[in-house]
């Protein structure tokens, strides 16, 4: 058993005792009831289980939770799909996913949402050239598996959020 403390969607949790081998995915789903984070493969191949990790230096990245132990998240700050909307108002990316019919069954949506959000935040800090936008999105989302949609509408949704606020995400004069 190890003491675990972390922050999830802005709320501090712990310290709680957890078994060392308990996966982060099971910690979220079985112990916290936060089933928005999905279990797909248990091998970090589909990334339906990915959450956002916010580093103290202000950068963020996604991490699979199925092969990572819960205790490896000790001291970390994470965001899950349950934390994107604020006061009932959906995020721009959530709205875009709906408006584009980006998902079908929706089981991979949490992973795509987290990955897309991290990309938006990264581009807000380090904008890209317009000509590189499509390949940047493709690279960012490529680790995620969707079996229903063929990915196109996910990509279009992310792209349209960026283009709708292009001053923020795109290098000027390109």
């Amino acid at each position: 058993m190890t003491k675990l403390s972390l922050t999830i969607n802005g709320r501090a949790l712990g310290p709680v005792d957890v078994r060392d081998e308990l996966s982060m995915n099971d910690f979220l789903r079985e112990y916290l009831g936060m089933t928005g984070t999905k279990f797909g493969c248990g091998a970090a191949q589909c990334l339906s289980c990915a959450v956002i990790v916010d580093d103290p230096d202000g950068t963020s990245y996604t991490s699979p939770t199925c092969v990572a132990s819960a205790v490896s998240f000790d001291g970390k700050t994470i965001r899950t799909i349950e934390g994107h909307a604020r006061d009932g108002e959906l995020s721009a990316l959530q709205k875009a996913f709906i408006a584009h019919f980006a998902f079908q069954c929706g089981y991979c949506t949490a992973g795509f949402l987290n990955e897309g959000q991290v990309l938006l935040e990264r581009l807000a800090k380090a904008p890209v050239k317009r000509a590189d936008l499509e390949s940047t999105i493709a690279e960012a989302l490529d680790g995620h598996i969707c079996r229903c949609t063929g990915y196109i509408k996910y990509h279009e949704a992310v792209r349209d959020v960026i283009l709708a606020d292009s001053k923020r995400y795109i290098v000027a004069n390109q």
Partner: protein
Amino acid sequence: MTESMRPSRRDFLNWVSASGIALSLSPLASAEAAGLPPRASLPGRSNWNPAANGAGRVDGVAKVTGAKLYASDFRASDLPGWPAKTSHAMLIRAPDATHVYLGMDLGRLTGALKPSVVVTAADLARIGARVPEFYAGDLFCPLGKTPIYLGQPVGLLIFETFDAFDQARLALRDGTFVKFGEETGPVAMPAYGAYRFTRVAGATPDTPDVYSPILAGWVSPGRSQSSPLPIWSPAAKDTEAAYAKAAVHGERIRGELAAKNPNLLVLDREFETQSVDPMFLEPESGLAWYDGRSGGLELVLGVQSPYEAADSIAHLLGEARAPFKPARINAQFTYMGGGFGGRDHTPFVLYVALAAMFFPGHPVRLAHDRYQQFQGGIKRHPFKMRSKIGVDRATGKIRAFAADHVLDGGGLANFSPNVATVGATAAIGIYDIPKVDVTTVALHSRGVTAGSMRGYGTLQTMTALEVLVDEVATALPLDPIEFRRRNALGPKGRTMTGNPYGVSVRTPEILDKLEKHPIWQQRARHKSAAPQGVLVGTGVACVTKDYGTGADCSLGRIELSPDGKVTIYCDHTEMGNGIGTALANRVALHLGAVADEVSVARVDTYDALGLVTSGDPYTMDQKTQDAAERNPRWVPAISSATSASIGAHVGTHAAAEAARVIFRFGLWPAALQLWGIAPNDRRAKDWSKAQWKDGQLVLSGLAPLPLPALAATAHARNLVTGAVAHSFSRWDWSRARFPLFGEQYRAEIDALAVRRGGGRFERINRLNVKFPPTDNNRIGTSYTSMCGTLVRIEIDRGSGALRIAKAYSVFECGQALVPEVVMGQAQGGFAMGVGYALLETLPPFEGGPGNGQWNLGQYLVARGSDLPLHDLEIEMLPPLTPDEPPKGMAEVVMVPVVPAILNAIFDATGRRFQSLPVTASLLKGVLA
């Protein structure tokens, strides 16, 4: 064997099962109390609306906020009235099917890790559990027997706490605790089904066929005692006359193809397809609780076939000894994280129920991990095919086609006989061929069970056909699209079972689109301009795929509130196909407003119809149907699985008909009242001239009426404000008349109940019901949709890496209810086709998924980087007429992608691959 033994796609179901266990089925209604979304609300009205006209998926907000929707999301504590704690079960499967099973050595589970309950074959025998016929075979392999397939369950371990379960599964991960003894080799079992489809057309298109399955019935050969393979020869001893007749015609066709005839180009080719997994992203999961005291078995399941799941569980426990027979079963159904056929008739639900029955008082969750899903989940059938085609060299017309299909059905029969027949009757694709002879047999093997999966046999047989056709065009030579045009079946032409299609046939239009597309027009230029070290090729294919099973049901209930809010209930299930959104849009055509609430997987809200059923709709004879239909509550079947691309066409039909009744007998008379039009005014019958525009009912020269005003009037005047309808399709809808307000209302439904004002639903007894004739069971395909695909590929000579540079698919689907969902399905079908053609494969036996060691990473599916995300153009043809009904399209869009890629590979490399998948390493090998 004759047609009376034709396999049923589904056993019929009764409201109360034969076992005497009361069944009730509902979506997760109790979750409502827990603040969860049991019904999907449209993201409009009170909430943010992504599109002003009410577009957007009804489940959109729930899915982007992580709401509990899927079976795998629910625990006992989420469900009001359930005990708080959830126990966890683990299904143990055999990784060996050639040695005697000796038992599980659970010695490594000590102390807290010891399971609370272990369930084995002996326990099932002890309690008197019965295996439903559809799943015939031991649910658990008994001690001392060789498993009949790799991945056959041997036991169920139940742990009271998640901690114990979690640690135990780690300890058992390597699978070596399942013990085997003497080598026996695989267990031999009879074939699951064998059929022969033979057709000989008359001398001209206008003359009757000489022989066809429609005329003579479906036939099966006899079987030898010593071999699982059937005896196809007409001359064999004990051959039944009906079969011999088909076989004599068939052998004659084969003789013509074998004869030396310089005017006939004959190709004789083999083609082989692989086993693949549907790889839906949510592994199968279920939650169950048997409250031993009250006798109720509660279940939370996510399947495509809710009625079947509940009925199979009732059968399983129907004769069990006390206390293992529940007094009632209450099954609740959730959204699914993908299905693709693999959740239609899955045996998984039986084990969920058993877990609860053997640990009474404790809610038990059974959930596959991905290894277990590969090990035990339903697979796509591998086919071995040999096809012979004869083409008149002078005219380029196909004269004859003969093929032999052998399917590996794996360990249990499941849908193998049906996949065999659907694949066989699709074997001539879009073509008009006067002489056809196709044999098919589905065999048992020790592989993981194969069953329903998107394409359902036609993906395999039409891939082989379209690759063969491409080779014919090259050999003649004739342009591949011109060859297809000359041979395409016209709207009145006969399919290989001898019937014409019952819907639009738009092959010429699709071929024209393909021919004019820049990918096709510029194929030579791109090939010759290929950069050094790169091979460029272009391929085309065009197919047609049936939708519907030949016995499909539709149930719908609509309620209109006094303030004009629309609520829809439907029995079909949501697996990503957007059924709820399609329903809302189809009903809006009649009621002028997108529904405020849509509830799918509802099988509990149609009591007012009081439906009863009997017999098997697929095999029933006309006399039996005629006698049964005298009972005004009888229908050939009550509810169908959500499968076979029937969501749009079937799933929304009854709801649309119910909406039509509300319009005609509720909103229209209310409008007359508000407009001040007297009943004897000639305009009183102009309901078909009225139109909805921006939520208002418009009739020329009169003030537009908003829906809320009409709804309020309908309620105040006690007019029709709600309707429940059922219909049945056997390649045609049932029809009946219903006495309503002094007239006999005709509709394509067979049961109706209506509500007046705020009253209760009351059944309207039908008059003159016409169910589709039972002879329609001889039809192979009547409802069909066409799709064509072009791809241009680039292959790196050095590595064999293949890139799809450009692609185009064009298809028709009648009226698209939710165009965005239709386009999404087409894009997803393209991706799945690419995976099937180039990436996905599972070894059949040892070393395959039955060993429990397979996962993603080893099994490759298409990722974004495998696809032409910015270079895939999809065109959906507009409906032929504004009122053309919706046609199923979710399967057909996947099929032509595969042969188009293979034909492009030939164009690039000069090499025809005769098996799937064509991996980069295979390409590298032939290019070396």
